[in-house]
């Protein structure tokens, strides 16, 4: 493993060569893909393309091997005990829906409670409403403290209501705050709850050890982790995966189909109906294998440095409301220009070719509580540079000037 070299790292992304005049700080929405990923996808289609699992010929077996190798790689990446605990799905949203739907039909009963936090992405709110709330399950919400952290005292209090499921994000996609998930998982388990962690942002920031965390479910999307769109991972404890009612029925996920009834296949197949996104899984594994060539801590230190530079720069810009705390932050800064709509700020940055998002970032309930129209979100990745941070600060200063002129 070589020393982390930001220039070398950035060189893996053709996107920046194609868009030299842009500063991309929308990494929490989706990340760019290194050449290794694009090559893996193309190579799969050119050499090994075939449908998987359904046996028969060597080409299909080669495709199956490549696909199942992707599962092994991902299992190793998060230290899953067993490869069958890695369920491929189309993304974090699909994974959370599978969990909500799957538990509702087996584990949850009308009258049960589910606990989430006030900082969740819609993907960790709406599935519970859609599949559970309508059937008599109550959704409790952990409120936030004044500095936009999850209120841990309230968390403890709400756990006393004995929720059957506790679901929260590892890292907030709005604020970048890293939640104390190890501790929260322990507490929730002690209260007897099934723990679900939305790792869409978390997996990008740090190495995850699902056995160490002892978490029941951990999910994420490939496209936010240098991988292709259309693929995601649902990790679960075997005994719980086996309790999920599949949300999709179809080929491969059943071992026997009769018109009167069908028998489900074993894991992981019972939760992977239909032809999976074979090239997506292979692309995601390629991303993970590529990423592991770099030292995680060095990457984190580099991102911390960029973040510090950005926060320092913000001090010099008047009239900002900064929502994100700089400590325990994974590299996301949400802010507002006082009295201005975030969409206007984002647009003025866009004019200067700084790509950020202004809005509610799929976290409407959070912003409703704060009474805010949203925020402008700067999200950093290890391929960003100090020069880009400086450019974005200048652009923000310019935007503020225009708005307040």
């Amino acid at each position: 493993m070589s020393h982390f070299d930001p220039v070398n790292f950035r060189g893996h992304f053709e996107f920046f060569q194609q868009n030299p005049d842009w500063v991309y700080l929308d990494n929490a929405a989706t990340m760019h893909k290194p050449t290794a990923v694009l090559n893996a996808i193309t190579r799969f289609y050119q050499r090994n393309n075939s449908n998987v699992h359904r046996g028969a010929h060597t080409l299909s077996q080669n495709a199956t091997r490549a696909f199942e190798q992707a599962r092994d790689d991902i299992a190793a990446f998060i230290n899953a005990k067993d490869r069958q605990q890695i369920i491929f799905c189309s993304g974090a949203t699909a994974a959370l829906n599978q969990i909500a739907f799957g538990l509702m039909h087996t584990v949850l009963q009308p009258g049960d409670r589910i606990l989430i936090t006030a900082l969740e992405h819609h993907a960790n709110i709406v599935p519970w409403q859609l599949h559970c709330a309508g059937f008599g399950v109550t959704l409790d919400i952990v409120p936030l403290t004044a500095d936009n952290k999850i209120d841990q005292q309230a968390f403890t209090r709400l756990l006393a209501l004995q929720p059957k499921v506790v679901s929260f994000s590892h890292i907030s996609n709005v604020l970048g705050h890293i939640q104390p998930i190890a501790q929260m998982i322990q507490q929730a388990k002690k209260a007897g709850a099934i723990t679900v962690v939305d790792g869409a942002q978390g997996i990008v920031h740090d190495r995850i050890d699902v056995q160490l965390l002892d978490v029941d479910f951990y999910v994420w999307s490939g496209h936010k982790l240098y991988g292709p769109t259309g693929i995601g991972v649902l990790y679960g404890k075997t005994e719980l995966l086996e309790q999920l009612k599949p949300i999709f029925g179809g080929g491969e996920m059943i071992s026997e189909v009769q018109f009167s009834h069908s028998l489900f296949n074993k894991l992981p197949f019972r939760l992977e109906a239909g032809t999976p996104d074979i090239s997506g899984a292979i692309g995601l594994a390629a991303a993970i294998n590529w990423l592991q060539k770099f030292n995680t801590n060095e990457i984190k230190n580099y991102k911390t440095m960029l973040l510090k530079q950005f926060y320092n720069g913000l001090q010099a810009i008047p009239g900002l409301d900064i929502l994100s705390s700089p400590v325990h932050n994974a590299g996301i800064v949400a802010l507002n220009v006082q009295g201005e709509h975030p969409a206007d700020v984002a647009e003025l940055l866009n004019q200067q070719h700084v790509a950020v998002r202004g809005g509610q970032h799929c976290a409407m309930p959070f912003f409703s509580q704060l009474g805010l129209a949203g925020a402008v979100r700067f999200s950093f990745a290890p391929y960003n540079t100090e020069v880009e941070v400086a450019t974005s600060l200048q652009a923000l200063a310019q935007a503020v000037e225009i708005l307040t002129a």
Partner: protein
Amino acid sequence: MTLDQLLTDTKPALSQIYSTDLPELSQAKDWQSKYRVLMQLGRKLPAIPEKMKQPSLLVKGCESRAWLMHYYNQHQDQHFFVLDSEARIVKGLMAIMLCLVNGMSNTDLKKFNLAQAFDKLNLKPYLSQSRGSGLNAMMERIKSCCH
């Protein structure tokens, strides 16, 4: 405040925008000046008072919230609109749009093509560059007022 009053206040604002701001916009040299004009222009449109912003008036499809009110004068076959947006730049762009369609007959509004109109005025970049979706959502809502 009533819709009537808003309509009355909007009319002169729109003609001023059309005669003064649009030329200024096309003469602006750098993007900074252009955006300053846009934002001023948004300010000229009277705001819809908070109390009148019924949920049903909300136009979906914009990152910022926007509202549209409509009045059709049957005798003269003319459509009139009042609109507002939380975001100043969006409101500026919507104001431009509005000065092109306000008072149109049902037939004209039906066949109005926003992209073409912006193109003619050299405003196309504003449409395609940004806020496309919000503006388009507003345009769709305006068109849905036709019969």
